[in-house]
């Protein structure tokens, strides 16, 4: 699935895959007639921060629940560190979950919530209190040890849920949209804390979200799901620079999809033409808005695809301008450095290297 790429992150992610922690082997799951997961295969490296990204109904939460053990796969296997995982009950798996709604026990204090996992596993009293303190310290919640969850704010409950999941020292931490209930500011702050916590502890994180910005900001790799199938698994930079499919290109960031016809090594989309290595026939290309430049702004390289376009709309957003262009019957989006009002016809260009071929 992974497209070729040469960024350093990508190389690092690949190297890390030498040490596979979790392996999902052709897992499928249906609820009645509805196929929720279609033979997913995925490897997660030890210490990796992998995000399952997708719209609601894409199957990302189902995949997480299969790994946690709340659901059984219809077919396929899940392995962790050379051990079959999907046949174990969830309480035997060294996998812990941070739930979307936190799922803290309302009748227990913060301290008791965090201690729960250690108590049921029969740890000694002194070990429990030591590790609970350590976990609460990690999420900066020691002063709330005696509080009930109902008296805490959403962000505080989130931290307790995190401590409760981490106190068992799982090999893999599953996070099911853990930040979706928080307001924007707190969300940004928690993102940063999650990321640094993951680096410090070296625990593998499998994070589920529908928010592509969050996925981009946090992940070592993103697994993009659509309708129960994997669209692409790659590092954020790789997936942005080389989206495998038109869906990946549109879901992660903005893009222009150019429907071109290839013949004799040349792609033609209306009056735009550029060299292409694909076999003859119809093809789809993705060109990011920031790859379309205004000729007055930047010197075009010799192989640039130049075209004249009418500026239909201009939206100023501080450091940049978002332009709606019309060229040769095509409507295109461009993002250029802020440069004052534009109108009428102007010359634009993009580099053929920035026209990335994508599958339908």
């Amino acid at each position, binding site marked *: 699935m992974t497209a070729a790429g040469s960024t350093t992150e990508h190389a690092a992610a690949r190297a890390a895959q030498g040490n596979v922690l979790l392996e999902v082997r052709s897992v499928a799951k249906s609820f009645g007639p509805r196929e929720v997961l279609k033979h997913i295969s995925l490897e997660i490296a030890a210490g990796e921060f992998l995000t399952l990204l997708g719209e609601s109904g894409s199957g990302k939460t189902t995949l997480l629940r299969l790994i*946690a*053990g*709340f659901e059984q796969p219809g077919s396929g296997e899940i392995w962790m560190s050379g051990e079959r995982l999907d046949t174990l*009950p*969830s*309480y035997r798996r060294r*996998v*812990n*979950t941070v*739930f979307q*709604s936190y*799922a*803290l*026990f*309302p*009748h227990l204090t913060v301290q008791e919530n965090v201690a*729960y*996992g250690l108590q*049921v*596993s029969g740890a000694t009293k002194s070990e429990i209190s030591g590790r609970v303190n350590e976990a609460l310290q990690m999420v900066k919640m020691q002063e709330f040890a005696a509080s*009930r969850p*109902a008296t805490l704010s959403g962000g505080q409950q989130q931290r307790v849920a995190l401590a*409760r*999941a981490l106190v*068992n020292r799982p090999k893999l931490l599953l996070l099911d949209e853990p930040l979706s209930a928080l307001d924007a500011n707190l969300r940004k702050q928690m993102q940063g804390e999650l990321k640094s916590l993951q680096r410090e502890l070296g625990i593998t994180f499998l994070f589920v979200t529908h928010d592509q910005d969050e996925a981009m900001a946090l992940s070592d790799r993103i697994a993009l799901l659509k309708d129960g199938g994997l669209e692409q698994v790659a590092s954020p930079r790789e997936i942005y620079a080389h989206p495998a499919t038109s869906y990946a290109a549109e879901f992660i960031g903005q893009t222009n999809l150019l429907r071109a016809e290839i013949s004799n090594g040349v792609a033609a989309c209306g009056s735009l033409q550029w060299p292409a290595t694909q076999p003859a026939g119809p093809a789809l290309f993705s060109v990011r808005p920031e790859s379309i430049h205004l000729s007055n702004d930047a010197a075009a390289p010799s192989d640039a695809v130049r075209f004249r376009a009418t500026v239909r709309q201009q939206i100023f957003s501080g450091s940049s301008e978002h332009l709606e262009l019309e060229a040769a019957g095509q409507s295109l989006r461009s993002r250029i450095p802020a440069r004052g009002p534009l109108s009428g016809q102007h010359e634009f260009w993009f580099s053929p290297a920035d026209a990335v071929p994508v599958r339908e």
Partner: protein
Amino acid sequence: MYSRAYKWIVSTPPILWVTIFLLLPYALMFAHSFWLVRDGVIAHEWNLQNYAKLFQNLVYLEVLFRTMRIAAGVTLLSLLLGYPLAYYMSFHAGVRKDLLYQLVIVPLWVSYLVRGYAWKTILGSEGVLNGFLQYIHLTKEPVSFFLYSPFAVVLMLTHIYTPFVFLPLYASLEHIPRNLVEASHDIGAGSRATFFRVILPLSLPGLLAGATFAFLLTLGDFLAPLLVGGPSSIMIANIVQSLFGTAYDWPLGAAISVSILLLTISLLFFTERLEKRWSVR
């Protein structure tokens, strides 16, 4: 803002209802308990001798304790029957949930008396149970102690009040977010630990409400002893009934009623406090 007329129209019926059917009868009962009967007529002379009688004549206390023992038995048995049923239905019945729920509710539509008489026909010496025992040659002759014993009263009232225990229990189990159960499994607790550490504590308010229903309804019951209990299982309400009826000692009957009422109110007060402490949401 609501008009004066509207406020009048809305508040008058409940005030009338409470006054006529609650306050007035209670006031009369309370007053009667401090009067006495002289020469077969109720004399309006204030005194405390009715309450003194309750403690002088041990019969009343004895019957009260028996009633409470029976009520405790009914409560315990209906919890033992109702909790597993509610637990199964809430967590494991799946699509059969609604059907089972209806099946539990349906007996509530059948008259109390009909169900009482049904137990009479089952437990009697010519009854269904004895017939069956003789048919399978477990007994040679009809066993007479099934009917007309405290056991029969407990059995019948357990049957009748188990749905009352079941309903609040089921409701409280249904209110437990399922992700708490998942969270418990997730951090290493098996089914047993999850039940005792999460489900049971969170269902305590429902359990308490159900137990209160069974206990208090049994405490005031007088038909079960009449139908299936016999003389050995006379309960406190039967005494009140006879004092107001054939014995014609309304003041003493009223004194017993007031005592039971106080007992009931303090029990309700106590359980309500407990319930508030145990319900965390």
